[in-house]
């Protein structure tokens, strides 16, 4: 399902002129690469705008591109139920102390997804109401999905 990429990009650009770093389509999927500090206002805009109305957070996850820098990415998969559009947002975070605003205030579904990204990658989601490890025990050391975390039995 090809989306009208230009339409979405221009709408976001009007509101946030400097936020979109890159926009691309691969296999009919639209990806917007955004500046990390603008993620919360952009998400709120995408959610609240009556025409876009991305009301459904499909997925949120971390990615580690070690040894590249910026090392981490947070990837958001959005869907608008009314128009059936899908959109992927990506932000890059530096390897030292990665942190980004939580989008829990926009989609409650982000609650556990952000906790998982914190648990697996050590990415801090600011203003998350209850940021704790979720799959691993509280005393676990390290973040297993980081590429420099060893794979061992």
């Amino acid at each position: 399902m090809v989306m009208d990429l230009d339409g979405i990009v221009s709408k976001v650009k009007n509101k946030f002129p400097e936020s979109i770093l890159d926009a691309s389509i691969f296999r009919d999927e639209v990806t917007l690469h955004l500046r990390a500090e603008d993620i919360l206002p952009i998400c709120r805009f995408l959610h609240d705008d009556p025409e876009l109305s991305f009301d459904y957070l499909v997925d949120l996850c971390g990615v580690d591109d070690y040894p590249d820098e910026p090392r981490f990415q947070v990837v958001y998969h959005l869907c608008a139920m009314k128009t059936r559009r899908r959109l992927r947002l990506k932000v890059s975070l530096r390897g030292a102390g990665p942190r980004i605003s939580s989008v829990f205030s926009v989609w409650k579904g982000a609650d556990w997804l952000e906790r998982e990204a914190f648990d697996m990658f050590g990415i801090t989601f600011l203003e998350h109401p209850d940021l704790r490890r979720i799959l691993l025990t509280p005393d676990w050391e390290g973040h297993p999905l980081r590429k420099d975390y060893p794979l061992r039995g």
Partner: protein
Amino acid sequence: MAKTETMIINMGPQHPSTHGVLRVVLELDGEVVVKATPDIGFLHRGLEKLAESKTYHQCIPLTDRLDYVAGMSNNLAYVLAVEKLLGMEAPPRAQAVRVLLCELQRIASHLLWLGTHAHDIGAMTPFFYAFRERDEILFMFEMVCGSRLTPSYFRVGGLAQDLPDSFEAKCREFTRTFPAHVDEYETLLTQNKIWMRRTQGVGAISAEEAINWGLSGPILRASNTNWDLRKVVPYCGYESYEFIVPTGKNGDVYDRYLVRLMEMRQSNEIVRQVLDKMPGGAVIADDPRVVFPPKPKVQESIEVLIHHFHIASEGFPVPQGEVYASIESPKGELGFYLISDGSNKPWRFRVRPPSFINLSALSTMVQGRLIADVVAIIGSIDIVLAEVDR
């Protein structure tokens, strides 16, 4: 002056009605739940990490072990994602067989849910009825791929092998008799006074809230939201089959029950249509880069043997890029987000687990309810902890 204090009790992780190893820390005021905090991860096996060191084919058995009562659906979502990355498509017969088996899988998964959920609430009999038919389906899976729960039957580009000759008759017999069996389940529960009082108005969630929580599958549809990926973004040719998407009105435990029962009837209809329309031809794409050579040839020629060995041990490189592919699994939207760095192993293997996200709304649903309702609500979400914890 009377003073009440809340009490904290532990439900699980070893508790029959938590369907695996879910622990819920309940803060109670008498019998009323003040706060429920789910504690998960007891079954975490690091699947996403593990997959990063496996070739794309070797990941297929890993997906069986996500939602282990719906192995076929997991296989399908994964191979669709890899096929999307490669830009290839399975031949029509493979697509039809995939739909057929995934709909049978949906019935099997819903039957397991029905039996255990009713049992949780105190109705023993539906369990035996539901498992009788579920076993028929598992028997058919055994005919197809030798395995009841962990099929690993789909391949990138198609299927591991064609259906056995005896399959069609067996499957037709099942589709002929199954609707009457659903009627039987309904006589036990649908108008049952105890069942209705235990489930109606319990754990209700509005459509708006369900969407905001990212819920998917029967639980979202029970909240009066017509959202089914088989209709929204048809894959594997779902657009050519006729079926309706059942929805509920109140979004409570009872409506989730009704939606799943209707879905089983619809799935049975789809299976019947697939059998009628089943196309002939190959069951795997003709793409030697990715697909294993035919077994008889492997035993005849050294070059073909080398080819087989190469794909089995080295795998195949996948173009650089990232895709997200999702299907309507029995539990909801099951998606795979794969990032390829151009090598033979996924750089990032992300599962969008419907059970995990559906379970995250549990605290909201049980707040202010009685402790006995917690059991009914957990059952109605239909979680499989292997998928929650991965």
